[in-house]
């Protein structure tokens, strides 16, 4: 069989997202990742919940299961436990994954079952026509919050970290170079890989991430972290993140100014949970962290689940029927 191209992972179904939706580029990145990784369509399953993001399985030429609102991690858990040979991907959104399905996301992450969870975060309910979501920023005006929302939003990566996630990454929808590479690493990870993708809902929350993703300023508003590399960013590559020992928070410093040298800048350690928390907590004027923010090895649930189980059927029913308190009335 010849190698499959990303086009081989497209279905014959008409894609029904709004023109210009960030989901198109995520779909393309997913298809590229599958092709580049030599995925077998028959051994790959995409499981989704409800929402715009959750339509994605219909457009990927693999097995796919579009389930019910919020429950994709639970269905995917059943799929993976029943057949651990499968590559199982979960596609969800900020409403599906963090509101109605928050409990399942929490437990998938803490169990560390071998799933790749892609959370498309557009900070809004798109499919139900634009209500504010659990990641919407305070003051978001929407049909259900005409005077501006006042819920405190949740930060998806911090939620995942709190749940004990073993792999946390963040990416931008339109990053066709970086996103496939990140998804490939997520797929290579044993355990639950959680990837938050900042996704632009051009109808109900247009350009809400512009402060982070705008091409003009991205070099200064994003930091792409690499394990073992110093946390340096900026158009001139002269900005770095340093730990302020007094506040126990990260601060941005300019290398060369005020006697700051590269040695003052923190080096990224993706196994360090404290650093992950600091990176995920950053708000402007600090840059938003992108890339693999946290990655550790932990026991994988599906492995443990099958490890001590006898494989195949050893006990026969005819014997099991005779366990317990017997009374033999057979003649002779």
């Amino acid at each position: 069989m010849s190698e499959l191209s990303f086009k081989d992972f497209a279905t014959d179904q008409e894609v029904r997202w709004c023109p210009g939706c960030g989901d198109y580029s995520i779909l393309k990145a997913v298809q590229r990742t599958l092709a580049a990784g030599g995925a077998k369509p028959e051994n790959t399953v995409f499981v989704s919940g409800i929402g715009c993001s959750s339509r994605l399985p219909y457009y990927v030429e693999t097995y796919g299961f579009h389930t019910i609102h919020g429950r994709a991690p639970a269905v995917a858990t059943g799929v993976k436990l029943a057949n651990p040979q499968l590559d199982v991907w979960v596609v969800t959104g900020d409403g599906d994954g963090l509101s109605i399905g928050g409990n399942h996301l929490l437990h998938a992450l803490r169990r560390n079952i071998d799933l790749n969870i892609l959370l498309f975060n557009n900070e809004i309910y798109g499919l139900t026509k634009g209500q504010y979501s659990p990641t919407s920023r305070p003051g978001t005006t929407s049909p259900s919050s005409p005077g501006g929302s006042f819920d405190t939003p949740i930060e998806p990566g911090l939620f995942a970290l709190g749940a004990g996630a073993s792999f946390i990454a963040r990416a931008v929808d339109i990053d066709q170079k970086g996103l496939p590479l990140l998804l490939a690493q997520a797929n290579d990870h044993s355990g639950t890989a959680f990837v938050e993708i900042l996704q632009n809902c051009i109808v109900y929350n247009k350009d809400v991430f512009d402060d982070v993703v705008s091409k003009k300023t991205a070099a200064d508003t994003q930091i792409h972290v690499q394990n073992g590399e110093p946390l340096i960013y900026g158009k001139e590559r002269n900005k770095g993140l340093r730990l302020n020992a007094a506040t126990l928070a990260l601060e941005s410093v300019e290398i060369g100014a005020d006697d700051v040298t590269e040695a003052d800048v923190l080096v990224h350690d993706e196994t360090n949970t404290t650093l992950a928390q600091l990176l995920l907590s950053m708000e402007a004027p600090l840059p938003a962290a992108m890339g693999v923010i946290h990655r550790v090895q932990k026991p994988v649930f599906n492995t443990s689940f099958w490890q001590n189980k006898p494989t195949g059927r050893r006990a026969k029913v005819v014997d099991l029927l005779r366990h317990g308190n017997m009374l033999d009335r057979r003649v002779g």
Partner: protein
Amino acid sequence: MALQPGQDETSYVVRFAGDSGDGIQLQGQQFTVASALAGHDLATLPDFPAEIRAPTGTRFGVSAFQIQFGGNRITTPGDEPNVLIAFNPAALAVNLPHLSPGAMIIVDENAFTQQRLKRADLATNPLEDGSLNEFTVIPIAISDLTQQAAKPFGLGSKDSLRSKNFWALGLMLWLFDQPRDASRQWIKIKFARDEAVRDANLAALDAGHVYGETAELAHGLVQHKTPQAKFDAVEYRTLTGAEALALGLVAAGELADTELMFCSYPITPASALLHQLAGLEDAGVSTFQAEDEIAAICSAIGASYAGKLGVTSSSGPGIALKTEAIGLAVATELPLLIVNSQRAGPSTGMPTKTEQSDLYQAVYGRNADTPIPVVASRSPADCFDTAIEAVRIALRHMTPVILLTDGYIANASELWPIPDFERYAPIATAKPDDAATGGVFQRNPQTHARVWATPGDARFIHRIGGIEKDIDSGNISYEADNHQAMTDLRRAKVASVADYLPPQELEQGVVGGLAVVAWGSTYGAVYQAVNQCLSEGYTVAQIHLRYLNPLPANLGELLARFDRVLIPELNDGQLATLLRDKLLIDSVQMNKVTGQPLGVAELKDVIYRNVPRKMLEVSNE
């Protein structure tokens, strides 16, 4: 139900009662085993509070266990105990209403202190105030005697008191001339690591037994012998409903050559099934304890999608949470078994008390037109066959199936003639064979089942979901005609289950007079009541439904041959509504929701009032 000295009955009813921490259930189970080994038929009723160890001595902390055993066919735990053994004043007070005059009451007289009487809300001591005059009361210093027996083994007074359930068991085994061997063996295994506890319990068991031998002088206590039941020449075993259901699921998996994945969330009284199956993992079942009821059914659906048979289990409140996902399984045409161990409701209701009030929920309780087959177990042992039949339907038609059982069935036990498993028909599945071609949504014209194609198979790569799908391709479809066609298909699929059901038969009795129609765990009481009325010459018959959706095809015709239909139910009239809905049958209802099983005597009263005539009169017409 007096216990007459020198007069042996064919069967006896004994009720053990005490604090929930007194080991009452264990005592009952041990008596059950001894009774089975002595050759009696039997049925049991554990009746315990929801609290694990409620404050001692209180009425709400009373735990009880009732058993009927004897030489005739036993199908219920009995209406009224011949003997009540009560460990404290609260246990006596709570259980007194179950007794009729003449019954024997054995009490631990050490427990009838001022303080404990007060704890039981008793102003006066019933042993002294004359309130028990119509019963035969036998006060014994069970606590003192237990401590004396346990003394040589070096346990403290509190620890040695823990053996009093075995002391009382010893006495009851003597009273009904039952063997002690199995209990001795059980104690030796259970307490193998703690010699003192082991020896104290063995000594208490023997001391209770010896006490009986000498008690005739003190109390006029006389040993009662029970005839052995007539057994077929096969092997028997005792088992609870939860055990039978677990075995039935394992058996269904073997018959279908399909592994099962059991996904559930703890809930009373359904958890017993999870515990049973967790011990059967070398028999083709794996168990997954999910984070909630919704995740439990969703992971079961995921397992079914991936080629194992997903099974989930709960009680009414949990089934309510699973409802949306049941709809997903219907929409995606996946096999799934949902077991509901019903309990008294609504909401949390009475978790440890039995009821059969989730029939509406099972048959009707979903959004949209979402029919699914419903099967019900009638007794603990019947769970074995109903589990197999429910799985057979799920796999044959590619549909979720609800299996209704209840708290009584799950925990009660009975003696079961072990079936010849070789004679069970294999269960066919819709899995594609190696030569299969064509689409996933080609359906069997008889069963309407689609192909059970699963990930890993390169021939059948497809997407599926809860959105309405095109009837042929499975792709998303919002077409008007297609939704009509899919709705028709879902209706026809469940209707087609009836083509495979055996015709409904009479359990016993004659056509023409009164039909007593029931379902679920009332089987045993209805059997006894109808049986006795028949022997008294009444034109009555018993019809017991295993299949509630769809109903057996001949049921309407069968019921039309009776003058009157009586439906006794432990709910407010749900089967009566269902039969009126499906068959336009009017019925007399007998509805009881007390958290207790149906009684034989109370049902007979209703039969007498409604049965049109005696058979003798029929022959004169």
